[in-house]
């Protein structure tokens, strides 16, 4: 099938109800995909920072508990403090997995939006990726 990029004010994006006919509708749709692309780049950075925080906080928690245990009488059961750190790690990781699902879905949505071959939408995705990367990636190196 022959497909190529076109400039058009008409497109149907992703869902049946997202049907655009007018310049105003197209402008709004471009803003939405732009926001989606910014969100995608931000989520990538956010995930990495969350992982960092989770590892740091859980290791702090574990070392605190370790010093508590060595200070106390060793006959005390150590299952509760250790499982608290593990539980916290479990929730952190589960939350990250949910964020990962959102990231995967948004990535595919952006791919499908570009697949509409509408040039305005394509510009929105590219510009949003640029803005998102520009704003979010410096935050990676910040502790």
């Amino acid at each position, binding site marked *: 099938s022959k497909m190529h990029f076109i400039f058009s004010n008409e497109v149907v994006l992703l869902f*049946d109800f*997202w049907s655009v006919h007018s310049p105003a509708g197209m402008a709004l749709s471009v803003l939405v995909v732009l926001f989606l692309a910014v969100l995608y780049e931000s989520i990538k950075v956010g995930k990495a920072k969350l992982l960092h925080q989770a590892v740091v906080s859980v290791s702090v928690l574990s070392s605190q508990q370790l010093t508590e245990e060595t200070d106390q009488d060793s006959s005390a059961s150590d299952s509760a403090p250790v499982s608290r750190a593990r539980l916290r790690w479990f929730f952190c990781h589960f939350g990250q*997995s949910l964020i990962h699902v959102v990231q995967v879905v948004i990535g*595919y949505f952006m791919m*499908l939006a570009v697949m509409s071959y509408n040039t305005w939408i394509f510009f929105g995705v590219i510009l949003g990726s640029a803005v998102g990367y520009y704003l979010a990636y410096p935050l990676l190196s910040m502790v």
Partner: protein
Amino acid sequence: VDHSHHTGTSHMADNSTTVPPHHHHHPTTSAHHSHGGGMDGMMMSMTFYFGFKNVELLFSGLVINTAGEMAGAFVAVFLLAMFYEGLKIARESLLRKSQVSIRYNSMPVPGPNGTILMETHKTVGQQMLSFPHLLQTVLHIIQVVISYFLMLIFMTYNGYLCIAVAAGAGTGYFLFSWKKAVVVDITEHCH
């Protein structure tokens, strides 16, 4: 014909949007969206739908026609997405392990005031013909192929299969990153 879920009155006449979703895939008469210029007569759906009749999946012989086949396809796609996440993690850890090899090259260089200094070059990496690098290359090709397959599956716009991709990715990430995240060095984690 039910127009209640469309707001515009000048909406193009297109039988697949005015029909309730579970009728979307009438095998012989479905003419999907002809919006967006130059796509008349294309049998591909361009919006999300839920259905299991006449769903072609990647290859010409692979057509889903029953709920049972769709369930099987769901499981297969779910596992494929999970495997993809696992493959990514496995490649990362393999790369870290194989980069233990560090080569030091020391050479004398002239320094200030006529002294001789020893300049030491440290090279971290893999040799081209080493087994780890060849293995990484093979795994990379597999990863690229699977990622394109997942993209093409998502491109079918079939709601069940798309959910399978997303859920499989999330489950795979959860299961395989569990151990990795505990081991990883914080400073090197930047996608």
